[in-house]
């Protein structure tokens, strides 16, 4: 097959001085599924945005079928048959599937929007590529997996022959992922070329023909998929050997630290998001909460940490009812919280690393100097903490937003763990960060457990949940539908069935997770 795209010597420097791509060469053969892998921050998304005309590179050339092109806008790239499904979906929630699909090239009748025609276009395309969507449903009402299909259709609708998918499986269940893979193979058979960005090397092995590996803004190798093992890929990605699975000894749970009894919650539009949820987390164990995002996990965490108050039921932390407690009061009981959304709740992005690190203890008497803050103590404590958590920053005074995602998350983790909490709520603690940082955080969580902390780990990342949890609950539509006391007996496929609501344990089995 002939080369369809060649990028030569691409260098992209963001206005903040980050060199996201450094002299990158990249080449795609027509009709292949080509994986682009690399740790978070390696520059994969940036390279693809350059190819999609969304970002302009400082240096480098792009050739399509051997002819040099200048891609100065997405519109340009679309005209050359390139389509991109972004990591964060580019959909308008209040519009219907059909409207999203035709946006920008709307069919008209007498100057007006021809909605029927839009629906028809959607149906046709949907059938042609076997990507089933409901044209008249509003995008905000459909599940993530469907949104992704809409995104793919959107690209196809604009005549994309080359599809870029940026971490498409990050948000999918195992079942949805295999469905996506079937669809991608079908697209490939129809002659489309696919660039597939992923962290998950087993997926890459499963469907890709070739793989390009990036590290720190550089291309560090291109391979046929059968020529290289996952270990070798991961070593190239990280630039060093690193074990992927976590070593930990068996948990020795003690008394319950967190007990949640009969928790129900209605959201602002009156929908019941949590239905009579009861469970305990004991000292010295990691209780995992698995589930497709949006099944009540977020609300559960918000209620336990005091961010959300209008609930029904009883929550005790170390035998104190938290009902009347403020967020600070709850933290005062010895609770740490690694929030899901690190840029909103995790850090103040315009404050320095140091300020973020002390933001939960600035009023600690150790940091006070009668009237003012004791900057010497704070500086030395900060330096020690940055060292201990290996936060990569050239100065403790650097603004947090200048750091890479993994290092920002380490700031959050360092702050929350260094108080030695008795209960830690870890919500998606490693989402979207590189394997190195993720491993480090996982290690820290296990260490904390070993020193007797109770940890509630909420995550949509199945690998993380399966590797880290000592026991596990699964949430579906606001309810606990399964409890596994012993993780060694659970398979990923079985978990998937519970996560999709296709299977459910008996009340007695579920009730076992309430140890009180």
């Amino acid at each position, binding site marked *: 097959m002939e080369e369809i795209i060649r990028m030569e010597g691409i260098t992209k420097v963001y206005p903040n001085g980050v060199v996201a791509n450094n002299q990158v060469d990249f080449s795609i053969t027509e009709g292949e599924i080509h994986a682009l892998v690399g740790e978070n921050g390696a520059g994969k998304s940036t390279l693809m945005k350059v190819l999609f005309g*969304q970002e302009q590179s400082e240096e480098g050339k792009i050739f399509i079928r051997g002819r040099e092109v200048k891609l100065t*806008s*997405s*519109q340009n790239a*679309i005209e050359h048959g390139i389509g*991109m499904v*972004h990591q964060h*979906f*580019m*959909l*308008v*929630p*209040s*519009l219907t599937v059909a*409207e*999203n699909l035709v*946006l*920008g*090239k*709307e069919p*008209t009748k007498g*100057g*007006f*929007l021809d909605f029927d025609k839009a629906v028809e276009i959607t149906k046709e395309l949907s059938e042609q590529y076997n990507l089933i969507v409901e044209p008249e449903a509003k995008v905000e009402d459909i599940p993530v997996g469907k949104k992704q299909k809409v995104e793919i259709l*959107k690209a196809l609708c*604009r005549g994309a022959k080359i599809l870029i998918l940026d971490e498409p499986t990050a948000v999918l269940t195992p079942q949805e992922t295999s469905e996506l893979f079937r669809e991608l193979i079908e697209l490939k058979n129809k002659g489309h070329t696919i660039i597939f960005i992923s962290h998950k090397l087993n997926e890459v092995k499963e469907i890709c023909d070739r793989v390009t590996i990036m590290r720190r803004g550089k291309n560090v190798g291109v391979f046929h998929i059968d020529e290289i093992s996952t270990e070798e890929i991961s070593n190239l990605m990280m630039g060093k050997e690193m074990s992927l699975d976590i070593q930990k000894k068996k948990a020795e749970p003690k008394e319950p630290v967190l007990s949640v009894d009969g928790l*129900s919650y*209605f*959201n*602002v*539009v*009156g929908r019941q998001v949590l239905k009579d949820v009861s469970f305990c987390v004991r000292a010295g164990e990691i209780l995992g909460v698995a589930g497709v995002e949006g099944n009540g996990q977020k609300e559960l965490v918000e209620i336990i940490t005091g961010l959300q108050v*209008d609930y*029904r039921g009883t929550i005790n932390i170390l035998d104190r009812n938290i009902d009347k407690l403020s967020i600070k009061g709850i933290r005062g009981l010895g609770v740490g919280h690694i929030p899901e959304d690190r840029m909103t709740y995790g850090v103040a992005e315009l404050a320095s690393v140091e300020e973020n690190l002390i933001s939960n203890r600035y009023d600690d008497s150790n940091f006070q100097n009668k009237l003012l803050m004791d900057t010497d103590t704070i500086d030395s404590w900060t330096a020690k903490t940055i060292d201990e958590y290996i936060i990569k920053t050239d100065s403790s005074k650097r603004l947090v937003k200048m750091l890479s995602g993994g290092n920002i998350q380490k700031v959050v983790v360092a702050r929350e763990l260094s108080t030695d909490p008795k209960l830690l709520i870890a919500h998606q603690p490693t989402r979207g960060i590189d394997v190195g940082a993720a491993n480090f955080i996982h290690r820290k969580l296990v260490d904390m457990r070993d020193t007797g902390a109770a940890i509630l780990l909420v995550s949509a990342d199945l690998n993380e949940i399966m590797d880290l949890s000592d026991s596990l609950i699964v949430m579906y539509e606001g309810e606990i539908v399964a409890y596994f006391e012993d993780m060694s007996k659970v398979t990923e496929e079985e978990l998937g069935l519970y996560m999709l609501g296709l299977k459910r344990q008996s009340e007695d089995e579920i009730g076992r997770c309430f140890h009180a």
Partner: protein
Amino acid sequence: MGNLASIIFTAEFGYAILRVTTPILFAAMAALISDRAGVINIGLEGIMLMGALTGVIGSAFSGSLWIGLISAILGGVLMAMLLAYFSLYLKTDIILGGVALNLMSSGGTIFILYLVAHDKGISSSLKSGVFPQVDIPLIKDIPVVGEIFSGHNILTYIAFLSVLVIYIFLYKTPLGLRIRAVGENKDAAASVGINVRRIQFLALVLSGVLAGFGGAYMSMGYVSWFSRNMTAGRGFIALAAEAMGRGTPLGTMLTSLLFGFADALSNSLQSLRVPAEFVQMIPYIATILGLVVYSNQQKPKKVKGEMEESV
């Protein structure tokens, strides 16, 4: 209290509501169109005020009412384009830009008025036209209904018609779809090749057109002259109306009527023996109350009700 009822439950009062709602409604529609494109137009007050002045000047110098209207619209559009240029191209903060526009207009109109009419307060030396009142056949003969709905200024009818036009524009045309898409998720819009800045520019210009109509009504319909700061906060009331109407044309029309009601009430009560300063506060207090009620209903009571039920 009997007095109050005898004021409110009259056909004249119904007529008055529509009359005073007109400028608020134009401005609220102006607020709506820019808000839906994701650009908040705080400068409506100033845009409307400028439109009121340029309308009077255009009409006085040309002797034509319709050239007056066009001048008002042009005045509004120019002001809106100024805001658009600063905020979309030079990247000033749109809120600050809007505030600046209001201040500039407040002083600038007086300055221009002085240059043109040699008066710092009122334009009575300029002979400008006034838009005609129109009777609606058939309806005008129906008792009460005719008195309320017929015989209004032609711009009043245009104001209410604009609600329908904007509804159709936003929801039934490709451009409207793009405006809504840009306002809701501009990255999504940009990723399918929509020029976000152009759409927002256009929305601000349309916003200027509507505010220009509002200004024209103020100085050539509501009254027949321009006077300093005659918009008296209507641009801000309109922003509140648009927010309470949740950005929908129909909802915004209803909330505009609500504020029109408060305004009409304040006008009528001045005939009773209540201190005028107190009565003049009514529309503004209504605005504050409206916004409080609006923000409370954002967390619907239904949630609590359901919870209590199931306990």
